[in-house]
């Protein structure tokens, strides 16, 4: 038993109790591999929620589509009674949140059980999950390698099979990058499509939250719960697919390009305009908004920040406002142009990361023939997509025994349903899917 819907089905029909699922899950987290993926285990809360689910099942009422399914959230969601740290020691002693984030509340109403908060780059500023307070999150497929970030804990814990799904946040690729490097599914929704109340911001005009999971069906169910939307089933649907060329093809692994050809050999190759500028503008917007958000705290005690994010945030706080305004104006212009240009396609294929997970000892990657810091550049293919607000589903290529690599399925604004439907066909064709890490999925083994 490993996938969310399988667990929910068993809990709903009474063949297993939510309490048992939670104990099994907590035991797995306690004895699982040392990934530095978890920041807090919420055992008491999880047991309490499990009892509530079991009581609903016993009473013959509907416990919800995610009944008894344990999950974790990136350490930037408000959890009632706990300080929201955003992965930083600065807020370790902050006043506790009075309410759960809205996303957590919706998942609780659907029967899901929160068991842990998960590691991240401090303030979600990075693609590596190298955190001074909690350590570097390790990749379950090779613990000498990064899991990616900034939602690295959320990705690693699902990839290891210790939780069936989790929530992360994505400003420039922080869901899709770790999903690709750890070989699981991750969704960045249409900008503003999922509830952001109670989520610690990085760059508010670009931030979104989204789920990680082990199958398309799981991810779709979590998205339906979070968005409050039900996707109608449509059989035998055809998809008009394009492959993104230009910058996306220049820094992709040959295996990703081969996979895109195998998936849609006849799909036209589309060059979106101004991709390099989009990425640069996204960089500047993130730096400016991040710097502005933390300016007061930096003024109080800059040295309390994680060394890995401190200098970046200070630099962002020094950016001129007209430059930020120019970046936002360009964003508006490009989004309008790209929306028209892609109107004839249902799905566009692109690499999710430029390469497999880099080594923790040498966290650099090759971009345009030069070695660049992974922390800043792993999002080269995700950043321009977030910039336009389009939904993007990171899917794992099926490659057992090898380090994971993912693709992005990019859709039109508000059309996540098509992405799920298309991904399901690729999953059926055996082209994408989760390949377990060495030793298998932990909960599967348990």
């Amino acid at each position, binding site marked *: 038993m490993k996938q969310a819907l399988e667990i929910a089905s068993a809990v709903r029909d009474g063949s297993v109790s939510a309490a048992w699922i939670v104990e099994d899950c907590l035991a797995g987290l306690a004895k699982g591999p040392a990934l530095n993926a978890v920041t807090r285990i919420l055992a008491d809360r999880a047991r309490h929620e499990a009892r509530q689910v079991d009581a609903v099942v016993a009473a013959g009422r509907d416990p919800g589509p995610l009944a008894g399914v344990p999950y974790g959230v990136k350490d930037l969601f408000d959890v009632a009674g706990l300080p929201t740290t955003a992965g930083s020691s600065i807020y370790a002693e902050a006043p506790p949140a009075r309410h759960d984030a809205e996303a957590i509340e919706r998942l609780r109403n659907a029967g899901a059980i929160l068991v842990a908060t998960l590691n991240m780059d401090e303030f979600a500023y990075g693609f590596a999950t190298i955190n001074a307070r909690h350590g570097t999150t390790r990749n379950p497929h090779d613990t000498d390698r990064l899991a990616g970030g900034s939602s690295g804990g959320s990705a690693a814990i699902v990839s290891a099979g210790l939780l069936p799904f989790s929530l992360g946040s994505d400003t420039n690729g922080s869901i899709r990058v770790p999903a690709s490097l750890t070989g699981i599914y991750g969704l960045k929704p249409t900008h503003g499509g999922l509830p952001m109340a109670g989520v610690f911001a990085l760059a508010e005009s670009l931030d979104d939250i989204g789920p990680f999971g082990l199958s398309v069906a799981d991810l779709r169910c979590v998205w339906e719960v979070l968005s409050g939307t039900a996707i109608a089933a449509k059989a035998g649907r055809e998809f008009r697919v394009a492959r993104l060329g230009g910058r996306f093809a220049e820094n992709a692994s040959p295996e990703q390009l081969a996979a895109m050809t195998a998936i849609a050999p006849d799909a036209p190759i589309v060059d979106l*305009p101004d991709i*390099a*500028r989009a*990425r640069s*503008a996204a960089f500047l917007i993130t730096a400016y908004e991040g710097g502005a958000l933390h300016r007061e705290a930096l003024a109080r005690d800059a040295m309390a920040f994680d060394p890995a994010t401190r200098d970046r945030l200070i630099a962002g706080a020094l950016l001129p406002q007209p430059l930020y305004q120019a970046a936002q104006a360009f964003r508006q212009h490009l989004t*309008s*142009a790209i929306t*028209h240009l892609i109107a*004839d396609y249902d799905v566009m294929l692109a690499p999710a990361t430029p390469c497999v997970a880099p080594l923790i000892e040498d966290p650099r990657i090759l971009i345009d023939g030069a070695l660049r810091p992974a922390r800043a550049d792993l999002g080269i293919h995700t950043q321009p997509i977030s910039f336009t607000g389009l939904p993007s589903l990171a899917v794992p290529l099926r490659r057992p025994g090898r380090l994971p690599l993912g693709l992005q399925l990019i859709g039109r604004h508000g059309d996540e349903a098509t992405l799920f439907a298309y991904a399901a066909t690729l999953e059926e064709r055996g082209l994408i899917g989760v390949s377990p890490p060495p030793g298998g999925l932990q909960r599967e083994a348990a």
Partner: protein
Amino acid sequence: MIGANKLLRSWDPFLTLLIIVVGAASLFPVQGTAAAWTKTIAVFAITLLFFLHGAKLSRAAIVQGAGHWRLHILTLGSTYVLFPAVGLALVALVGGWSNPLLLSGLLYLSLLPSTVQSSIAFTAIARGNVAAAVCSASLSNLIGIFLTPLLVAVFMHVDGKDAAASWNSVTSIALQLLAPFLAGHLLRPVIGGFIDRHKAILQPVDRGSILLVVYSAFSAAVVGGIWTKISGADLLELVGLSAVMLAVIMGANVLIARLAGLSRDDAIVLLFCGSKKSLVSGVPMAGALFPPSQVGVIVLPLMIFHQLQLFVCAVLASRFRREADARDAADSPASVLSLPRTEREIAVTARARGLAVPDACMPGVVANLALLDSHAGILLGRAGS
């Protein structure tokens, strides 16, 4: 080398398919009963194509951009008045010593509607008014369904008939285009959702129909001895005449935009939407409007003009963008957009914002501002992006 690279990058892969089909028709022309069948299938494909085009056309896109009515009138004027006038003038000018068959094709292309997809794409690259381009190009296509057959009836003698006979034949043939187009468009409220969900079938129908018409047309033309009537010199002359036509139209549109006082963003729409001709509409229309033996020769100039316009527009669009970037950068005083780079500049800027940069952070802040400055350079067009 730059020209060759630009040409390669702007090369339309579909044109390669068209050349292959023309080659195939030249080597293996379909004849006799098979030719009649091919023609029938081509007519059916054209009908289906125009039905689907009607169903796909969004009136909402036209309504949304309709505010710029002066721009749309100028664009339509360029497509349906200026272009035909230049076409007629060129034909009259070189009529005595050029191949009349190819001149008919040149005149025909001057009567066609504008392109939709590439007009929008080039306007976007040039940082022009994209919403107006969507409206202008869509409107041009909608009107072309009615207007192009009428203009063909007025200015071209089809199949050697006199103007009146030609008028009758063209109006009846126009119905073959109009009827399915209108049927598709009127049924959009009912089938629009289905069409949008099954857009995957539209492109093969588009391209398949065009390839079928071209194969059928060139087969008939080859049987009629097209390659004995058209020489390599004729084709070179055609490239030259197409270039002249494009240059005159583009020059006129630049002048008109200035005289009309259009903003830069709108002038780009006029230049790109008003100077283009649609291969996707032109080839099937020719299949319906002209006798099979003439279609091959009629669409040959269009195929050459199509590639020429893509190449010129690609070069112009990137040049306009560079100019816009440079202007944006120039409009903002350097001090307003420039980043602090030296330790002293950083300390001064930080102080002004109530920050003190600790010594331990300074090297990292300098490095990060250098990185952000390079991104600012790419955004503002100061660096090679």
